[in-house]
């Protein structure tokens, strides 16, 4: 049996539990700043650096892909804007005859399509937006005019 639990205990500690009272007086200890920095280095900073690395990679990829796409588009569009260079020597008679035959075939096909889909002059008047067809793809008769 412990003697100190009874009146002895009460008299010394004024009725309070000495263990609890002293534990409450225990000071909070301060986590060292350098240890805290190590924690942030291993967690948030590592993540932030990794994030920046991925952002840099993404930016580099965007620049390379964008440049490649722009170059490809320019290569495709340039002949339309600038026109094709004139041949150094005039085409032969056979080449001219072949091209004329091709053009005639295309004209016939185009005329057939216009007739098949009912795009007549009256249709074009009623739906001005279809004039794009007229201006872009004039009929053989209009072209001859």
């Amino acid at each position, binding site marked *: 049996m412990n003697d100190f*639990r009874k009146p002895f205990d009460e008299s010394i500690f004024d009725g309070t539990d000495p*263990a*609890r009272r*002293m534990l*409450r007086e*225990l000071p909070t200890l301060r*986590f060292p700043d350098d240890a805290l*920095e190590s924690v942030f280095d*291993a967690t948030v900073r590592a993540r*932030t650096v990794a994030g920046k690395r991925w952002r840099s990679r993404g930016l580099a990829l965007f620049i390379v892909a964008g440049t490649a796409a722009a170059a490809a588009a320019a290569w495709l569009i340039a002949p339309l804007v600038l026109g094709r260079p004139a041949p150094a020597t005039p085409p032969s008679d056979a080449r001219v005859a072949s091209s004329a035959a091709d053009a005639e075939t295309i004209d016939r096909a185009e005329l057939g399509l216009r007739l098949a889909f009912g795009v007549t002059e009256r249709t074009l008047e009623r739906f001005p937006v279809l004039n794009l067809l007229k201006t872009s793809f004039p009929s053989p008769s209009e072209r001859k005019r």
Partner: protein
Amino acid sequence: MQPFRLPAVFWPVDAAAYQETVLLLKDTVFSYAAYLLGNAEEARDVTQEALVRLWERRDHVTPGEGARPWLVRIVHNLALDRLRAARNGRGFAVDPDGLAALAADGDTSPDRRAALRETVEAISGALALLAPRDRGVLLMRDVHGLRYDEMAEVLGLPLGTLKSVVHRARERLREKLLAAGVRPA
């Protein structure tokens, strides 16, 4: 000295919440580990490991005050692992000077320092004589103010058993204090 803060510019939301949680609870967690282990250096390692685990599990832990029981549980388990690894079962040499030097108190007067050192020395010396589980329950309940239900979750004990453990631990500490001739101020 101001606590260390990382610049919050361009930070993801979870990183900012993590930082706030760490700054809020770091001293609590460190104190728990230090008094449980009796050694500031070991406590520093354990606390760092626990805070890194908090980062890894940040999606599953409520930030801010809600992370306190979770962190205490992690620190408790890490500290007990270290104590078990120590050969004598008591862990490490109790270092009251090292602990008192880290007391987070704005008053740095010599008298106050001496009083702090005396308190830390008395309590840490008495705590070191208790079993690790008794130390843990006293620190959780009487120093850090955890609720019984939170402690029961941390320790994996039924509530009734836990209250009994706390009561017995207080009695043992009281015995040790009285045996050492300690008188509260």
